[in-house]
């Protein structure tokens, strides 16, 4: 082993430790930012070292310079410009880029290896070939799957589950074909055309896997695809004999899988149900916009403000509607005013409120709401019964009592916030449209519930002036 190789191992070791510490530090709000910076520093070291020690660097340096420049500009501008509500999409698209890069590296390795081996003469070694195929197939699925997830969250693609008769059969046949081709490529032939068809089918598979999944489940899908990209990176690291790729990829593959499990558990559903349940098709339940049978009571902002200002306790339940309307700052103001009047104000955060776990925490932290007022579901659910007013701001499915009682409801069994146990419920909502899961919410027909329609930001600002006047 040369000194250079030894030094490379040292750099990769330092980088790998920094990745592990980065994930560990992300576990606590006090150290999270340090953790991220540490990960970035480790990454800079590993990437920088690779650039300056790579063989043949001088010949192709311009490719690295041009590619690095384009990639950096896209990355920085995208990450800086994106509004807070669109963060999940952004993570999806960055993840897709990583998956695409893994697939490209795997394809390039295959082409190089087959060209060197002299096409058709002898089979390439099986184990590296299997790793190459894994990197190509998983990276491709992650690329197109992430793009579809991005489209669904951004609204380019219908967020509802897209299914057609026999869609599962088609998907099953496709997966079977991929498996057969993989076996053929590993054990029978290293045919380049077959390999390219294999990659093309993997790209199609990514689309077919994500299309039937509803928009409400996208966080879980993004987390799963994040884990996939990690596995694809680990596989390419195996092929290249590169420990930095191997360790970082495996680390993300494993942690992403656990995170996906945690998210599913928060919704009380299995991963299989998320992937194949076509959740939100509304089978057997009323569909969005047809909830005309429900009679709801409405309230104006002044009355709602008085109800809260003269109450003893208020629990605010934020949801995606608050994020869309960017209402977090007026919400904080409302909180300050109520606290100044001696009202006890808490926030009830459902694990899957918004589009990602922690989405609401990030937004409310942005608006300077103290951590200690944000309560997780299990911590606060018993307090609703003792609370005068539950103020629901743009949350829907996570407050739906049908999840508790109606066995025909698609969200039956999902743990929900006990909003309906409060003395009064005020629901801020744009319209009577159904939530992201596409199902009706009986909470709105509850006699204790009053609806306050309008854009969440405007409505909360009205509530703020109402409380001031009260």
């Amino acid at each position, binding site marked *: 082993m040369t000194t250079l190789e030894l030094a490379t191992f040292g750099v990769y070791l330092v980088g790998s430790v920094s990745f592990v510490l980065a994930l560990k530090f992300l576990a606590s709000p006090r150290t999270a930012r340090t953790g991220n910076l540490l*990960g970035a520093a480790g990454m800079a070291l590993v990437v920088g070292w690779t650039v300056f020690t790579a063989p043949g660097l001088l010949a192709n340096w311009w490719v690295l310079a041009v590619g690095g420049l384009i990639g950096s500009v896209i*990355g920085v501008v995208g990450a800086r410009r994106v509004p807070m509500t669109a963060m999940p999409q952004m*993570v999806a698209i*960055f993840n897709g880029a990583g998956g695409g890069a893994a697939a490209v*590296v795997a394809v390039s390795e295959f082409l190089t290896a087959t060209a060197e081996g002299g096409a058709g003469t002898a089979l390439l070694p099986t184990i*590296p070939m299997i790793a190459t195929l894994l990197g190509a197939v998983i990276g491709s699925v992650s690329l197109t799957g992430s793009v579809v997830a991005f489209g669904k969250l951004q609204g380019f693609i219908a967020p509802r589950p897209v299914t057609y008769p026999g869609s599962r059969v088609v998907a099953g046949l496709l997966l079977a074909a991929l498996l057969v081709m993989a076996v053929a490529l590993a054990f029978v032939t290293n045919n380049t055309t077959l390999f390219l068809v294999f990659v093309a089918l993997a790209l199609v598979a990514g689309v077919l896997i994500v299309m039937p999944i509803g928009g409400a489940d996208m966080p879980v899908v993004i987390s799963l695809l*994040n884990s996939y990209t990690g596995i694809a990176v680990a596989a390419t690291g195996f092929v*290249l004999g590169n420990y930095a790729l191997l360790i970082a990829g495996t680390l993300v593959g494993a942690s992403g899988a656990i995170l996906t499990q945690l998210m599913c558990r928060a919704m009380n559903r299995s991963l299989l149900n998320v992937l194949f349940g076509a959740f939100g098709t509304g089978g057997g339940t009323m569909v969005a916009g047809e909830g005309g049978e429900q009679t709801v009571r409405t309230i104006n902002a002044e009355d709602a403000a008085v109800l809260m200002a003269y109450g003893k306790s208020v629990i605010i339940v934020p949801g995606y509607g608050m994020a869309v309307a960017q209402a977090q700052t007026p919400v904080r103001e409302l909180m300050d005013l109520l606290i100044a009047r001696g009202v006890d104000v808490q926030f009830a955060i459902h694990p899957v409120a918004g589009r990602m776990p*922690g989405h609401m925490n990030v937004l409310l932290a942005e608006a300077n709401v103290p951590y200690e007022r944000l309560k997780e579901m299990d911590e606060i659910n018993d307090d609703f019964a003792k609370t005068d007013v539950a103020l629901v701001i743009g949350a829907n499915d996570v407050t739906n009592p049908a999840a508790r009682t109606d066995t025909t409801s698609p969200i039956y069994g999902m743990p929900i916030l006990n909003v309906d146990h409060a003395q009064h419920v005020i629901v801020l909502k744009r319209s009577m449209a159904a939530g992201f899961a596409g199902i009706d919410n009986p909470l709105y027909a509850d006699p204790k519930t009053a609806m306050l329609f309008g854009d969440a930001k405007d409505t909360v600002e009205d509530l703020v002036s109402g409380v001031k006047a009260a």
Partner: protein
Amino acid sequence: MTEALDPRALVDALFILVLTAFVGYEVVSKVPTMLHTPLMSGANAVHGVIVVGAIIVTATADSPLQLGLGLLGVILGTVNVVGGFVVTDRMLEMFRGRRDDRASGGKASGRKASGGKP
């Protein structure tokens, strides 16, 4: 593909793979819900290390096709790694802003005043 041919290297890689998977499991099972989004984003940035693979492939490329693939890989990998860390930092910035405000009241009251106090 030659580096991975040596059986000893394969065994080493397998050991690293299995043990790292356990590390990944242990590290993540203790993260509070509110940090799940930043964690997912941070992990997303970490697998941006694939750019290293793209660099290695590009460095040894000698045909236009390989150069083109290398360029594509470097662009995609850089988007992943740069965008991933920047977007995670932006999320976490908000958590930290909160803590600073509590520590030094001056800045916080200044910001709150602009928030529309009478």
